C-alpha cells in the first residue's frame, strides 16, 4: 500500500461469505411480515384524535409578484379552522440547508415556508388551509383568491440568466473542480472530441408520496414530526434551529416508508408547517401529498447540459476532460445546497486515469420545481457524459470501444488512487480499492459480449437495428464521519439494536441484524432493529448516499463486538474458563470445540444475572447492554459496469432494452439478495431516465408531466430481465467488514450504457446526445 493511506485506519482483508455464519448470506427479510400482510404503517396510516388536515394553495404561474391573497371566502366554508399566508409565519426563516451543505452565497436562494412576495415555480406554496377534513380543505384551497403579476420566466439553465429578485442573478454560483494543466493537455492532443450533451429532468417518484403529521404533546412540551424518512436526525437538527426549540423538545419519527430514492425524507416547507400549526392551533395536523402535488413539488433532478471536450494522444490515452456545465437547480436551493453539481464534477473522471481535468459549473436557478439529490446524484449525469465521450473518441480514433476503455482504466497497482482538486475546500477522492479491468473481463464474459456481437450481426443482416452498449463507473458510499449504535439482550434472549439509521424499504433491519448476529454469535431473527427515532438515540446518519450499510453497519459491528466482549468477560467468570476458550453460538456461550452438553451459559441467563445490584457485577455496569461508535474519515468507492442490448424500431422510433447486466464490485455483500434488489431496482429507474421519464416544461414554465399518464415510469412490460454479477474482489480496507454501498450501483451507468447501445443499433456513433431517448426524438435522429 502506498502512503495515500497514511494516517488513515485500515483493516485487513475480511473473511469471505463461506467463512461466515450469517453475514453475506441470503437471509430472508425481517421487515416483510407486516408489509406483505397489509399491516404496514405508512404516513397515511397514522392518525391522531382531533387532527386537522392541511392543504396547500399553490401557484399556478411559474414566476410573478403576489399582489394580493384573499382568504375571506375560503374562511367562511364550514370546517375551515385557519388559513395562513407568509404574513402569518413571518418569523420563520427559509428551509435551511443541512449542516454540512451550506454555501454562504446560496443562502438567499433558499425556499421560504410560504411564498414571500414572489412565486417562482408552478406549485410554489402560497397559503396553507387547515380544516376538519381533507375534502373541505381542498374545497377551501380552491376558494383562496391569489392575484399575481406575471414576470418573465427562465426555463433553460443555459439561457441568459434572469433576476431571482431585484439585484440578484439567477446564476447562484459558478463552481469549479480541476486538476492538472488542462490547456497543455489540449494543446498536445492528437485527437479532440467535443460534445453537447443533455440529461433530462426526472426524479425518484416513490410509491408513497410525501406525508407529514405534526403532533404537540403539551404535557411534555414535545413537538413530534411523524412520517419522516431518510435523515430523521439531521432534519431534527435543522428543525430545532428553524423553530428555535430546545433539542429535547422536538422529535422526529420514521414509520414504514414506501421508497425514498433521495427525494422523500428531505425537509420541505410542509414539514415545517405541520409542526408550527400543531403548536399554534393546538391540534394535530396531518398532511398527505397527492400525486399531482408530488410531481410538481417534490425534489426533481438530473437536468444538466454539458458542453464538453476530451483530449487523447495518438494511442488513445486520455489527456484531459474539459467541461462547461449548466446545472438546472429549479426555483430554489433546497436542503442539499450545491451538492448535486459538486458530485457531478468530482466524479466526472470515473475509473479512468486522466492527468488533467477542468469542470466549470453554472449553478442556475430557473422557474421550475426545485432540484436536489436523486439516487446516484451527479453520477448518473457524469457517467452519461464521460461514457458518451469515450464512445465518441473510440469512433473518431477507430479504436474498439472496449479497448479504448481498457487502455485508460486505473490499474489495480495504482490503488489506492488519489484525486486531488486544486480548488480550496473541495474534498479529495481516495479510491480505496479496485480491480477495474478484472471486473471488465468478468462482465464481458458474463454478458457474452463477443457471442452477442455475432448474434447481432445476423439480426442486422435481416434488417433489425440491434446494438450493444457499455458504461463503466465508480460509485461512492459510506461517507463519514461516524455513527453509533446501542444493543441489549433481555432476559428472554431477545435483542434490541438501536441505530440512527433509516429504512426506505432497502432491507436495513435485516442487514443490520445480520451484521450484529455475526459479530455476537446469535440468531439474527431475534434482533429487533430500531431506526429513525430521534428519541431513542441521540445521533444518526439516516439512509442516504449509500451510507447506511457501510457506516451504520460499521457501528453495529463495533457495538455487537463490544457486547460480545462483555458477555464473554462474565461468561468466563461464571464458567471458570479463560475468555480465549469461549465462543458464542446461537446465543449460548460455550467452550470452543466442546461436544454438546459441555459447559454453557445462554445470553438470556446471563442477562438475568446482570441486574442492577447483582454481586457478580463487582462495580461494573449492569445489564447485557452496550453502546459503541464507528469512525471513519474516508468514503469507500465501489465500482461497476453496465452492459445493455437494445433494439430500435426504426419506423416508430421506439427503443426496447432487450437485456441488461450489472457487474458490480461491492467489496463484501452483507446480503446478496438485498444487494441484487437494490441493483435491479436502481437499473429499472435508470431505464426510466434513459428512455421514459421526463419532467418537461412549456415555454412559460408550466409543468407538462403532473400525472402518471404523462410521467412515464417504466413498468414490467418495458423492463427486460436484469442480470446481476456481484463480485467481491476489492473489499474496502477502510472498514472491518470490507463492505461498500449498493444503493446506487444499479442506476449510475444506465443512461450511458443505453445511449451507447442505441448508437450501435442505429449505426450512428455519437447520435444520442440527450436523455431520455423518446420515440419522437429517435425519429428525428433517424431522419
Amino acid at each position, binding site marked *: 500500500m502506498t502512503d495515500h493511506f497514511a494516517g488513515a485506519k485500515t483493516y485487513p482483508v475480511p473473511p469471505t461469505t463461506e467463512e461466515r455464519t450469517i453475514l453475506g448470506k441470503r437471509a430472508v427479510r425481517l421487515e416483510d411480515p407486516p408489509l406483505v400482510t397489509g399491516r404496514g404503517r405508512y404516513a397515511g396510516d397514522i392518525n391522531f384524535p382531533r387532527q386537522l388536515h392541511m392543504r396547500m394553495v399553490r401557484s399556478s404561474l411559474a414566476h410573478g409578484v403576489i399582489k394580493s391573497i384573499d382568504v375571506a371566502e375560503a374562511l367562511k366554508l364550514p370546517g375551515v379552522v385557519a388559513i395562513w399566508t407568509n404574513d402569518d409565519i413571518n418569523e420563520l426563516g427559509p428551509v435551511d440547508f443541512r449542516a454540512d451543505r451550506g454555501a454562504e452565497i446560496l443562502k438567499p436562494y433558499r425556499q421560504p415556508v410560504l411564498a414571500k412576495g414572489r412565486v417562482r415555480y408552478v406549485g410554489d406554496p402560497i397559503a396553507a388551509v387547515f380544516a376538519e377534513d381533507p375534502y373541505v380543505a381542498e*374545497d377551501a384551497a380552491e376558494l383562496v383568491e391569489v392575484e399575481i403579476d406575471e414576470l418573465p420566466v427562465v426555463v433553460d439553465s443555459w439561457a441568459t440568466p434572469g433576476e431571482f429578485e431585484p439585484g440578484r442573478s439567477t446564476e447562484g454560483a459558478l463552481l469549479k473542480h480541476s486538476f492538472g494543466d488542462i490547456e497543455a493537455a489540449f494543446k498536445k492532443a492528437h485527437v479532440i472530441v467535443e460534445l453537447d450533451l443533455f440529461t433530462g429532468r426526472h426524479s425518484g417518484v416513490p410509491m408513497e408520496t410525501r406525508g407529514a403529521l405534526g403532533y404537540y404533546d403539551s404535557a411534555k412540551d414535545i413537538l413530534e414530526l411523524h412520517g419522516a424518512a431518510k435523515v430523521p436526525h439531521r432534519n431534527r437538527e435543522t428543525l430545532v434551529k428553524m423553530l428555535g426549540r430546545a433539542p429535547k423538545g422536538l422529535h422526529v419519527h420514521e414509520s414504514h416508508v414506501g421508497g425514498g430514492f433521495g427525494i422523500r425524507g428531505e425537509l420541505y416547507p410542509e414539514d415545517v408547517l405541520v409542526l408550527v400549526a400543531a403548536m399554534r392551533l393546538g391540534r394535530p395536523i396531518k398532511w398527505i401529498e397527492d400525486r399531482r402535488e408530488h410531481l410538481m413539488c417534490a425534489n426533481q433532478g438530473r437536468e444538466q447540459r454539458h458542453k464538453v471536450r476530451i483530449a487523447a494522444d495518438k494511442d488513445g490515452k486520455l489527456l484531459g476532460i474539459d467541461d462547461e456545465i449548466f446545472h438546472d437547480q429549479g426555483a430554489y436551493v433546497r436542503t442539499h445546497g450545491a451538492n448535486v453539481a459538486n458530485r457531478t464534477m468530482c466524479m466526472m473522471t470515473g475509473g479512468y486515469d486522466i492527468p488533467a481535468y477542468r469542470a466549470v459549473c453554472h449553478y442556475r436557478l430557473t422557474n421550475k420545481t426545485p432540484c436536489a439529490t436523486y439516487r446516484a446524484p451527479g453520477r448518473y449525469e457524469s457517467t452519461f457524459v464521460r461514457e458518451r465521450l469515450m464512445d465518441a473518441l473510440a469512433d473518431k480514433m477507430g479504436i474498439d470501444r472496449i479497448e479504448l476503455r481498457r487502455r485508460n482504466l486505473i490499474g489495480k497497482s495504482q490503488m489506492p488512487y488519489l484525486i486531488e482538486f486544486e480548488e480550496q475546500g473541495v474534498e479529495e477522492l481516495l479510491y480505496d480499492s479496485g480491480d477495474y479491468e478484472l471486473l471488465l473481463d468478468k462482465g464481458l464474459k458474463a454478458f457474452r459480449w463477443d457471442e452477442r456481437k455475432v448474434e447481432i450481426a445476423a439480426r442486422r443482416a435481416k434488417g433489425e437495428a440491434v446494438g450493444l452498449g457499455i458504461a463503466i463507473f465508480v460509485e461512492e458510499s459510506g461517507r463519514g464521519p461516524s455513527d453509533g449504535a446501542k444493543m441489549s439482550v433481555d432476559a428472554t434472549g431477545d435483542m434490541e439494536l438501536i441505530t440512527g439509521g433509516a429504512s426506505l424499504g432497502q432491507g436495513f433491519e435485516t442487514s443490520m441484524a445480520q451484521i450484529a448476529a455475526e459479530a455476537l454469535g446469535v440468531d439474527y431473527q431475534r434482533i429487533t432493529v430500531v431506526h429513525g427515532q430521534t428519541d431513542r438515540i441521540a445521533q444518526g446518519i439516516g439512509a442516504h448516499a449509500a451510507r447506511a450499510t457501510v457506516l451504520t453497519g460499521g457501528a453495529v459491528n463495533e457495538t455487537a463486538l463490544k457486547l460480545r466482549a462483555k458477555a464473554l468477560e462474565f461468561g468466563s467468570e461464571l464458567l471458570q474458563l479463560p475468555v480465549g476458550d469461549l465462543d458464542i453460538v446461537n446465543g449460548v456461550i460455550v467452550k470452543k470445540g466442546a461436544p454438546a452438553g459441555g459447559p454453557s451459559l445462554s445470553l438470556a441467563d446471563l442477562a438475568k444475572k446482570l441486574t442492577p445490584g447483582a454481586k457478580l457485577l463487582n462495580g461494573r455496569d449492569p445489564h447485557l447492554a452496550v453502546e459503541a461508535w464507528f469512525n471513519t474519515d474516508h468514503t469507500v468507492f465501489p465500482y461497476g459496469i453496465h452492459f445493455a442490448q437494445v433494439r430500435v424500431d426504426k419506423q416508430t422510433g421506439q427503443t426496447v432494452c432487450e437485456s441488461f447486466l450489472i457487474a458490480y464490485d461491492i467489496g463484501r455483500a452483507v446480503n446478496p439478495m438485498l444487494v441484487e434488489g437494490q441493483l435491479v431496482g436502481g437499473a429499472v429507474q435508470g431505464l426510466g431516465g434513459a428512455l421514459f421519464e421526463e419532467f418537461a416544461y412549456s415555454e412559460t414554465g408550466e409543468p407538462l408531466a403532473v*400525472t402518471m*399518464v404523462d410521467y412515464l415510469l417504466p413498468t414490467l412490460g418495458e423492463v427486460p430481465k436484469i442480470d446481476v454479477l456481484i463480485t467481491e474482489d476489492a473489499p474496502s480496507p477502510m472498514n472491518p467488514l470490507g463492505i461498500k454501498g449498493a444503493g446506487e450501483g444499479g442506476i449510475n451507468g444506465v443512461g450511458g450504457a443505453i445511449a451507447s447501445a442505441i448508437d450501435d443499433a442505429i449505426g450512428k456513433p455519437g447520435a444520442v446526445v440527450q436523455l431520455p431517448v423518446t420515440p419522437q426524438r429517435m425519429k428525428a435522429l433517424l431522419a
Partner: protein
Amino acid sequence: MKPAAFVYHAPRTLEAALALLAEVAPQDGRILAGGQSLVPAMAFRLARPTHLVDINGVAGLDRLVLDGGVLSVGALVRHAAFHKADAKFGALGALLADVVHNIAHYPIRTRGTMCGSLAHADPASEWCLTAVTLGAEMVAHSAKGARRIAAADYFQGIMQTALEPDELLAEVRLPLLPEGAKHGFYEFNRRAGDFAIGMALVTYQVKGGKIAEARVGIGGIEGAPRRIAEAEAALNGQAPGKAAFEAAGQATAAVVDPIEDAQTPAAYRRDLAATVVTRALERAAI
C-alpha cells in the same frame, strides 16, 4: 385530488335511471359506469358533476347476447368480458379478444365498460376505433325514448359524440364478421397499457386471391377514430402482400389530419399512421 362534492344516486331500473338523468343532466349530472375515466377526472377536479347516477345496480344492462347477425353489448358489460374469444361470436370474438388486451391494465378492464368508453370517446380508445371500423350502431335511451346512431355519425371529435347529456348509451351493436374474414390490430404506445399514440384496426376478405371488402380504421391519430377510404381503395382488388399493405399505409398517411401534443408533433403521427396500418394488415395476413 379529492373530488368536489356531488349527490350520489343508485337507481335499480333503466326507467328510474333515465328519469333521474333527465332531471340532473342540466346541472352536469353524469352517469357513473366503470368509473375508470370519470373518477380520475373528478379526482383532478377536471370533471365536477353535481350528481352521479350510478348505473351499476340497474337490472338488465349487463347483457351480452347475439341478436341475429349482431352482437349486442349492454352498458354494464366490462372490458374483461372479451378477454377470451367466445367461439359463438366467430371471427368477431377473436377480434375483440385481440383488441381488449391493449386497453389499460387488468384491474381497470374488470371495471371499465365498452359503452363507457364509447360515451367517453377518447381519441385513442380501442373500442371507439372498433365501433367505427366495424360499423357499429349505438342505442341511446332517454326519458323521451330510444334512438339508434350509426358509428359514422356518432363520433364528432375529441371526446365529443352525438349523445345528448340526458341520454344513456344502453347498448352497442357490433355486426358479426363474415365467415373467413381476416382481421389485424396494431397499436403503438410507449408503455404497455397506455393510451395509443396511434393504432389501426383492419378487416378484409380474400376472394379469388384478391382483397375484398377492406375496412381500415385508425385511432389515436386524429381527434376521433375513422375509416380511411383511400387506404381501403388501395387494398380492394389487390393481392394481399407487402406492396398492397405499404400502399395502404402510405395512402393513410397522405390523408390524415393528425392531432399534436407537447411530446408528439403532427409529422410523427402522420408517419406513424402509415406504420400502424401496414403492421395491422401484416398481422391480418398471418
